[in-house]
């Protein structure tokens, strides 16, 4: 479990006291049980207090930004600037009737939205929000994240199959094929970064970058620069965001795999989608944009430094989130054949090329970034030339 939690907690008197009294009462050593309980409470608090609002505010941001881009006003009735709109939406969702279509496969129909939620929220466990606020310091961090998020693909497929509706089925089929296709360039781009930093844990990945842009992996070498864009395009497609939102293309499929879902079940799908976008942006920020590193490593060992790190992380992630929404309301939707062409004829070969390029770069330049190479040669020329 979380290796750092028990040593940290055993520094407090109340924790040791509680362990003693409960161990005496239950007649076995309750250290791991208690720390597990504390951990579970903390994790659920994080999910409910941070991620639910992020998902909810995502819907608000989407509408407000789309309104800006289209010279409209957007939601402005509930709360100041309409910022409480997502709460009103949530209440509305809860009050709606929960309809199950007559021909539906009920078991699968109930299962699909849950799988979507579970798959997305399981990824949150390894997100590096700051150096102290990572729930699990897992040695396979980014691999775990990619593996677990594959549950969403199944959820999309089942959501399409279960209601026994043609629109849903087409959307679900498109969604599943799109997700498993675009997983390949995304994973290979991530692999290039794993190669550079020499570890799959987010601690290593973020730790081997620095606060300022010249130490980010984005500007490490030309291949990672390309890999970032491959990853980002692939991530857009994996989260079914425009211009890759074919699974829920309104003009053709009503709304794709969640056509037949109502009320909270629909909200589960929507929430899962917005949180998934957030997670994918967070991974992009952690892998390519220096993650939680603060420029100059300000207040590194001070508790306030954690706040600065949170600030750096959320700034980068939310800027990427803005770009995702911006892209959605700017570009038209692409066709299915174009979707597959982009993935298999462009992104996958480019991602493979990047991987080989990164490996060669590591071999030739001993893992130094392009900036340090230029800088060092400049210093060498300046000092040795005269």
């Amino acid at each position, binding site marked *: 479990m979380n290796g750092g939690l028990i040593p940290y907690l055993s520094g407090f008197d109340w924790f040791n006291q509680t362990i003693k009294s409960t161990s005496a009462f239950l007649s076995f050593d309750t250290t791991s049980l208690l720390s597990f309980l504390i951990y579970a409470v903390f994790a659920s608090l994080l999910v409910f207090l941070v991620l639910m609002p992020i998902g909810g505010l995502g819907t608000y941001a989407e509408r407000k930004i789309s309104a800006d881009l289209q010279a409209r006003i957007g939601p402005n009735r509930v709360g100041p600037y309409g910022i409480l709109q997502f709460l009103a939406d949530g209440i509305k969702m809860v009050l709606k009737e929960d309809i199950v279509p007559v021909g539906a496969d009920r078991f699968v129909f109930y299962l699909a939205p849950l799988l979507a939620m579970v798959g997305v929220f399981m990824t949150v466990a390894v997100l590096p929000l700051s150096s102290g606020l990572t729930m699990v310091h897992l040695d*396979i961090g980014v691999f775990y994240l990619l593996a677990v998020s594959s549950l969403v693909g199944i959820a999309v497929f089942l959501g399409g199959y279960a209601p026994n509706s043609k629109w849903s089925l087409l959307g679900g089929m498109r969604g599943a094929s799109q997700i498993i296709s675009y997983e390949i360039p995304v994973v290979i781009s991530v692999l290039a970064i794993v190669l550079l930093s020499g570890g799959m844990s987010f601690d290593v990945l973020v730790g081997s970058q620095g606060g300022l842009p010249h130490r980010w992996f984005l500007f490490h070498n030309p291949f990672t620069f390309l890999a970032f864009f491959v990853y980002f395009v692939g991530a857009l497609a994996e989260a079914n965001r425009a211009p890759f939102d074919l699974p829920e293309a309104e003009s053709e499929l009503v709304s794709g795999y969640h056509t037949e879902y109502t009320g909270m079940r629909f909200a589960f799908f929507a929430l899962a989608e917005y949180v998934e976008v957030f997670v994918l942006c967070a991974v992009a920020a952690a892998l390519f944009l220096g993650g939680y590193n603060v420029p100059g490593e300000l207040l590194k060992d001070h508790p306030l430094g954690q706040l600065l790190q949170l600030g750096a992380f959320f700034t980068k992630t939310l800027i990427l989130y803005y770009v995702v929404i911006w892209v959605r309301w700017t570009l038209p939707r692409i066709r299915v054949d174009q979707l597959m062409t982009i993935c298999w004829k462009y992104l996958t070969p480019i991602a493979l090329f990047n991987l080989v390029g990164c490996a060669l770069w590591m071999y030739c330049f001993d893992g130094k970034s392009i900036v340090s190479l230029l800088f060092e040669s400049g210093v060498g020329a300046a000092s040795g030339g005269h």
Partner: protein
Amino acid sequence: MFLTVLFFLSATLTIASGIMVVVVRNLMHSCMALLGCFIGVAGLYVTLGANFIAAVQFMVYVGGVIILMLFAIMLTGNKPEEKVGSFLLPAMGNRRTLTWGLITALVFFLSVGKILLGMFGIGLGKKTAPTDPSLFESTVDEIGTLLLTDHVLAFEMSSVLLLGALIGAAIIARPETSKEK
């Protein structure tokens, strides 16, 4: 404590959904039970400290195999009553399949029995104590090193096998245009 709870949860999930896979007649539900079975096995790997294998289990079986199976199910059923289940499947048992099934079951039962009896200290083998899971540490480095040093031949062979499968699939899936010309 936590690992024990995790072990029993995963073991129950694995066995229960494994039984479900066989018992349930609706193919789609059977596939869902298989999903539960795979997740349970991933949980078992985690209790052994093999995080990497657990993630691979998730990636390959949950993300790949289950989706492939779902696609296969969707692509096969064309009669309405076969669409959601195997109701029209003929009984599969004849003398030959039953004999082979019996032999397989016997071998499986004996090998599992040997392990289980060994655990309780009965029978042939010496008692194999359940290993303390906290002994295991991160396995990623070792797996990587071993794959690219001692087992590099097997590693490369499997990549050739996969390439062959990929090319074969491409050839089968390609529309036959050359004959018409």
